[in-house]
């Protein structure tokens, strides 16, 4: 009679982060964030995150990788802030998990107030034309509507261009390396349509390294990353 809530899916990247941290019994700090980075990447890698949400998961993945990479180096204050910001955001999210629990239990409860069917609806439908409607105002109204929808049409277009998933990218990179034995990271990202795409490639690389299929070499910071096939 009431709402049903499907529980078997993640509400978003924040929920995933929170669950990983709570599973390890950690407090929400930047140290914890660095600690769960691998688990987070592993999840994104192995689960079929819906394509329209993948971008959001990857943005958080990128922030985690950044925090983790800095965890081993002394931080300058500005970089410190980025780590604190994500921790603060996660704490905020944590608070609202409780709010969600409240709303969930209220909508599951059989207690529900009902309103009353409209009583003073005239019994017979009689033609009551409005004063302000002509063919022109109708046309103008529809035209305004189409204009208002323009940004939405654009949004639909982009979500249709499905972000290449990490799994697909792993296959692609692996295939290329079977043929070529070595390549650079910029070879892979050359065709990237967006930053999300670059992050996807990076995640795919991490996974290939973990599986022991490739080796990545970087001579010094900000230098080109070279990838080699492990035979």
């Amino acid at each position, binding site marked *: 009679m009431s709402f049903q809530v499907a529980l078997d899916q993640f509400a978003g990247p924040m929920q995933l982060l929170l669950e990983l941290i709570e599973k390890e019994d950690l407090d929400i700090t930047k140290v914890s964030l660095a600690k769960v980075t691998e688990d987070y990447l592993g999840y994104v890698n192995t689960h079929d995150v819906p394509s329209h949400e993948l971008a959001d998961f990857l943005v958080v993945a990128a922030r985690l990788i950044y925090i983790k990479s800095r965890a081993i180096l002394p931080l300058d204050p500005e970089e410190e802030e980025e780590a604190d910001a994500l921790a603060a955001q996660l704490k905020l999210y944590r608070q609202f998990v409780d709010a969600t629990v409240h709303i969930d239990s209220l909508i599951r409860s059989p207690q529900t107030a009902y309103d009353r*069917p409209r009583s003073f609806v*005239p019994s017979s*439908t*009689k*033609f009551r034309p409005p004063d302000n409607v002509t063919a022109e105002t*109708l*046309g103008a109204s*529809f035209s305004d509507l189409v204009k208002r929808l323009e940004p939405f049409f654009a949004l639909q277009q982009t979500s249709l261009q499905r972000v290449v998933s990490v799994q697909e990218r792993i296959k692609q990179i692996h295939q290329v390396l079977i043929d070529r034995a070595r390549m650079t990271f910029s070879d892979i990202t050359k065709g990237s349509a967006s930053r999300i795409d670059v992050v996807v490639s990076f995640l795919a690389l991490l996974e290939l390294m973990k599986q022991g299929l490739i080796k990545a070499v970087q001579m010094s910071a900000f230098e080109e990353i070279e990838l080699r096939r492990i035979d």
Partner: protein
Amino acid sequence: MLKAKIEAILFASGKPVSLKSLAKVLVVKADELEAAIVEIKKEKNIDDSGIQLIDHDGSLQLVTNPAFGELIGSLVKDEFAGELTRPQLETLSIICYRGPVTKPEIEQIRGVNCSLIIRNLLIRGLVEEKEDSVRLQPVYIATPDFVRHLSVHTLADLPEYEHFHADERIAKLIETATTPD
């Protein structure tokens, strides 16, 4: 508590409810029911109550105190006469340009729930509901009265009709109405 339950049932049903079905739903005997109804009448059927209980032909119904008939009447008139609000006008334009169109389709285009607006347009006789054998749900079109009121021979005479009626992007948007995410 019986009194409160009777009140709630009569309120939510919005039409006369027979004593028989009340007794059945509430699982009470006729005399208990009678006693509770007498109590409700004592409370409500006084000048100082906005809602009253009428008892007709073995059925009960909650109604507004007739003394406030004029006050209520003026509210009704306002709602179903006069100018259309912007959301009403927009919904009407969708029905004129894209009709026959279903409620979920209209809602996909407008991005908001349109139940109340469509109801209002129906009552004012500006649009009508038809069964659609393909979509298997009601579709809405402009009434002949309204088309005449617009002083056009046919809706195709509306400004930019061809263009708006056939807009592919809107057609695509409408498609998503049949596939809930």
